[in-house]
Structures are given as C-alpha cells and as structure tokens.
C-alpha cells in the first residue's frame, strides 16, 4: 500500500487526482514521490504505485 505523509492510502490514479481527493490546496505545495521532488507539470501524469511514498510539503512559520 502507498503512503501519504505516513498514512496508508488505497488509491488508484495520478498524483493530481490524489491531491484533489484529499482536498489539498494545490497552491504553494511541493510533492515528493519517494523523496524526490515531482515537478508540478508531472502531477497529472505520474500514476501512484503500490509502494510509493508520497509527501506533500509547504511552508510554515520558522526561525
């Protein structure tokens, strides 16, 4: 099963479809697939595979 930010997900489809299903605001985020940055233009092409580790990151306050 694939993981999204450490949560198991049972999902078939592309990264873009996953973001939409999860209701994630797509502005100002970066998606990592297996610790590599997945360029925004590839979100709609990259299909999620069984062992994928997806991370969605953004900015927060920090010193």
């Amino acid at each position: 099963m694939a993981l999204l930010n450490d949560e198991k997900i049972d999902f078939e489809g592309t990264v873009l479809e996953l973001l939409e299903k999860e209701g994630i605001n797509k502005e100002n985020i970066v998606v990592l697939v297996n610790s590599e940055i997945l360029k925004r233009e590839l979100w709609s092409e990259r299909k999620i595979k069984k062992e994928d580790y997806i991370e969605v990151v953004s900015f927060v306050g920090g010193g």
Partner: protein
Amino acid sequence: MSFLIGGKEINSRLFIGTGKLPSYEMIKSIIEYSQIDVVTVAVRRIGKGNTWGNIIDYIPKETILMINTSGARDYKEAVKIAQIGRELTKSDWIKVEIEADTKYLLPDNEETIKASEILVKEGFKVFPYITPDLIVAKKLESIGVSAVMPLGSPIGTNKGIAAKELIKPIIKEIKVPVIIDAGLGRPSHAAEAMEMGADACLINTAIATSNDPIKMTKAFKMAVDAGRSAYEIGVLQEKDYADASSPLTGFLRGV
C-alpha cells in the same frame, strides 16, 4: 543605510523569524511597521486539507524569503529542503540549520559545512547557522557562503550573547557578513551584537512570544540601528579609572 548581502541591497539589519507567532495575519504588520526586508520560513509536511493555511500568502511579495532547513538532521536532508524551498518560492536564500540534538538545538557544524558546499555549487545563497567557531566560519567563507550566522546562545533561551568571546574573532576575521542568530532575548542584546560589529541580527522567539510582536519588532529594530550607528562611529574603550566629564579646574572656594 543600505548594505549588500546575498547579492541584494537591503536596508534592515534586523531579520525576523516567523515561528511561534500568534497569527500569520500579523506578519504583514510586523514587516511594514518596522520595514523588515528579510524573514525566515520553514518547510513542513502539510496536514490533511492543508488547514494550516499558507504562510507565504501573508508575506509581502517584495520581502526576501530565507528558507530555513530546520528539521534536517544531516546534510542530505538540508539539501533536500533547500531544493523544495526553491521549487516553491524561487527564492535561493537558504539558512542551513542542521540539528541532531533537540535538547539544546545546537547546530551540527560538520554537516552544515557539507550542506553549504553542495548548496553553493547549486547556486544557492547560503546562510549557515553555526555554533560559533572561527575555523568553521573560515571554511564556510572559503566555500563561498553569503554570510555566517553564529548563535548568541541556544535557540529560544533569551540569554543574549553568551558566546561573546567566540563571536568576536569571527566578526574580526570573516569578511562575509556575520549575522547573530538565536538566543537574543532583549533589544539590548541586539544592540550589543551590533556594537560589536555584527552586520545583522535574526530574531524570532523574543519577538514572536512577546505580548506585542509588532511593537517588539520595532524595539529590536531601534536597538539594531542604534548599535550599528555606534559601531560605525566607533564605540569607546572601557577604562579602569574615572575620567571627569566636567572640568577639574575653577572650583568654588571650599566652605
């Protein structure tokens, strides 16, 4: 007066960290009220539904974003965070912050040198946060960092420039700007850092956790400017004996 850092000409020698603020909404007021040019932000995984809101939406476009790599435990993670930061903002200003220990949050200078070397080669403007060590600072300078950022005392401790005697030689010997980062709890600490010849101060906790972050930023800004002016004029040396301010002649006859 403006100064050059990271290839940009800026005015404010006070840099602000945005962690621990009571709300993201006040960031704009903080920046505008004290005319801040540089703020730091961190990269984290988002929660479900992206409910944290996005801090970038609250920061004016002309403000320089310095992405910190906090959360990185080694140089590889720091490099990854820097790349994510650049992907998100197109900002190439990176504060390299690598801590393996969470009790004192002391930076890992060795990993920081490794990360800085890679990031400079990748074209980033690198601002390494270090435990004050002249030799480390020299190595970083030769790598081509944009500044060095020694800590005054551990993050969030408000103890001021506890590492004063280790920071002095860095200020004296290092030609790139020296930014005192971490531990400065009061405006007087920031003024002291600037009087010593630091080029800038980065403040987070002392402002963000104060009762009024907007006004406290101003207090720090005035202190930074006052300290800088004194440094440029030339701070006087301490003396062991009194040196009268009023003339020692023309006294009245004793009664």
